[in-house]
C-alpha cells in the first residue's frame, strides 16, 4: 500500500462548547479528488483548515505522506481559502507573481497561469477593479504557479459561471492526472457529473 498524500485520523475539533468535528478520518491518495459536502456549519471548512494546519485538532493526527512535520506539510500543499489573500491595490499579475516568489516554485510562467484561468486581459488592472469571478480565478491561478501535490480549496466555485467552473475543473483534472490530489469543500457541486470525484458527506461522518 502506498503512503497517502494526506491522512487525517480520528480528528476532533471543538469551538467553545461545540464539537465541530467528531472523530473524522480522511485519506487522500495521489490522483484523487475529494469533495467535502454537507450543509452550512457541518465543518467542511474546519476540516480543510485542520488539513492545512491552520486549526489544531484537540485529538487525532494529520499526516502528509506519512510525516507530521508542519513545514514539510506546507510545502506539500496549497491552500485557497474563502478569503482570497489578494491585495486590491496590486494587479492580478503582481498578486500571482508575489505568491510564486513567496513559495519559490520553480519558475512557472505567471502569464501562462493567468491565461489558463482566462484573466490575461485584465492581468494589469488592480484587483479592486475586477469582478468577483475574475478575482476568484486570479486566486486560483496561484495554484498553477506553485508546485504542490495537494490542493485544499474552500468553495472554489463560488462566484464562478459555468465557463469559469469548467476551467477550474480542467485545472484540477490536469493536476490530479500528474499525480497530485485535491480536497475541496463544495456544497453545491453535483459530483455525479465528475465520475472520478469522490464525495464525502461531512454531516454524516460527523454524527
Amino acid at each position, binding site marked *: 500500500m502506498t503512503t497517502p498524500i494526506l491522512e487525517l485520523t480520528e480528528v476532533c475539533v471543538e469551538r467553545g462548547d461545540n464539537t465541530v468535528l467528531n472523530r473524522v478520518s480522511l485519506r487522500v491518495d495521489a490522483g484523487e479528488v475529494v469533495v467535502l459536502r454537507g450543509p452550512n456549519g457541518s465543518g467542511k471548512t474546519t476540516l480543510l483548515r485542520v488539513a492545512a494546519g491552520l486549526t489544531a485538532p484537540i485529538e487525532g493526527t494529520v499526516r502528509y505522506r506519512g510525516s507530521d512535520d508542519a513545514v514539510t506539510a506546507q510545502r506539500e500543499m496549497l491552500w485557497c481559502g474563502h478569503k482570497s489573500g489578494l491585495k486590491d491595490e496590486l494587479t492580478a499579475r503582481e498578486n500571482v507573481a*508575489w505568491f510564486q516568489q513567496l513559495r519559490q516554485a520553480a519558475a512557472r510562467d505567471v502569464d501562462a497561469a493567468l491565461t489558463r484561468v482566462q484573466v490575461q486581459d485584465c492581468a494589469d488592472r488592480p484587483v479592486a477593479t475586477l469582478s468577483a469571478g475574475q478575482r476568484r480565478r486570479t486566486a486560483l491561478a496561484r495554484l498553477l504557479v506553485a508546485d504542490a501535490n495537494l490542493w485544499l480549496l474552500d468553495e472554489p466555485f463560488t462566484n464562478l459561471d459555468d465557463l469559469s467552473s469548467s476551467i477550474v475543473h480542467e485545472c484540477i483534472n490536469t493536476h490530479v492526472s500528474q499525480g497530485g490530489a485535491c480536497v475541496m469543500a463544495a456544497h453545491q457541486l453535483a459530483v455525479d457529473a465528475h465520475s472520478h470525484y469522490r464525495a464525502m458527506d461531512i454531516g454524516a461522518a460527523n454524527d
Partner: protein
Amino acid sequence: MPLMTDRAAPSLAAAVRAVIHRELLLAMRRIGDLTTPLVFFAVICTLFPLALGPSRELLALVGPGVVWVAALLAQLLTASSIFRQDFEDGALELYILAGQPLAGLIAAKVIAYWVVTGLPLTVVSPLLAVTYQMPAAAVITLMASLALGTLILAFLGALGAALTLAARQGNALLSLLVVPLSLPVLIVGARAVALSSAQSDATAALKLLAAGALLSVVLAPLAVAPALRIAVD
C-alpha cells in the same frame, strides 16, 4: 512536471525579499496611509512652540522630550494596522502556510513597515528640531535615536497588534499593552537627545537603543508568530 518529488528547501532570503517588495509596493499604492503619522508628528512638534511661547531657553529644554513623545505616538498610531488587512483578506493564512519560518517573514514585514513609518519620521525630524533650537550634534543624535527607537516601537507595535488581532476593541487593548513597554524607549531616546543638546556624550544611550533594536528584530517575531497562528485559528 516533477510532482511527488522531494523539493529542495526554498531559501528564506528570497521569500523575505518577496515580502519586503510587496509591502513597499503596497505602501506606494496607499500613499495616503503613509502620510497620516508623518503629518501627526509634524503637527504636534509645531504646536508646542506656539503654545509655549517663543522662549529659546524653554524650547531648547523641552525640545528633546516633545519631539520624542510625538514620534512615539505617531509610530504607535498605525500599529494596529500592521496585520489588520492581511488578517481580513486572508493573506495572513498564505504567510502562515508559506512553508517558511513565519518569524522570518514577520521580521521582513515589520522592517518594511518601519521603512514606511519610522524612517520617514526620522528623515523629517531635523526640520522640526530647528524649532527647538537644537544644536547640530543633537540633531544627529535625534535622528540616530529616532531611527533605532522607532524600529523598536515598530516591533513592539507588531507584538501588540498580533496579540489583539482577533479581539474586539483591539485598539484600546493595543495601547494598554504597548505603551508601558515603550516607556524605556522613550526615556532612553529623549535622554540621548537631551544629553547631546547639553554637549554631553550620548553614545551610551544610543548603544542601549541599538541593543534594544537588535533584540526586538530578533526576538519579537518569535512571539508574534504564535500570536498570529492563534489569531487565524
